[in-house]
């Protein structure tokens, strides 16, 4: 699936998007996999309560299932307006 990063999450991980092969069933499991990979992911996901997640462009919780998801995005709380 396509994984996107925005704002300081993007900066810490060092790229705006990547294709990830994963068997994670939830967002949390996907984050666990990423964190186990490299230090920069661990830095980005250190405090999950400071992050928001969208599945296929809809805001969801970290325990949301990933079945059928094509696009998962991680970012800090939004500051529009």
């Amino acid at each position, binding site marked *: 699936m396509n994984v996107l990063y925005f704002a300081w999450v993007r900066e810490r991980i060092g790229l705006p998007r990547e294709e990830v092969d994963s068997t994670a069933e939830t967002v949390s499991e996907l984050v666990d996999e990423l964190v186990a990979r490299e230090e920069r992911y661990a830095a980005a996901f250190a405090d999950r309560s400071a992050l928001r997640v969208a599945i296929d*462009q809809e805001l969801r919780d970290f325990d949301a299932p990933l079945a059928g998801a094509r696009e998962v995005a991680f970012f800090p709380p*939004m500051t*529009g307006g």
Partner: protein
Amino acid sequence: MRILVQEAPFDLGAESARFAAGHTDIGAVVTFTGVVRDSDEAPLQVMEIEHYPGMTERSLTEIAQEAQTRWSLGDVLVIHRYGALKPGEMIMMVATAARHRKDAFEAAEFLMDYLKSRAPFWKCEVTAAGTDWVPAKEEDEDALNRW
């Protein structure tokens, strides 16, 4: 309903005039415009606004539709920019038209409250001291509870 997400500046005057013109069934038009304000600490060189193309348009459309469900509105306009903006530049505007002023005011405040915390934009302030991602304010999240 009109939703615009763009890098280019918009013309508040022309947009306001166009939005308010030619209705005879509405009595009230409210506009809100967000302007890049100088930083509280160091002089702001540039405000970088990042967004999530696709989700941005989708969430702005959903927020505007929700406003039209909750209030009796003649029309709704949302314009939001992204990219590098200088102090004094206009970031975004919303406009609401209604028969009565209460609906127009409430819907505009609702749009702003949701847009602040639910539309996928992120602001980064660039000063001589470096770059800072603007943190979300707890009061902005709390503002959603009134609706």
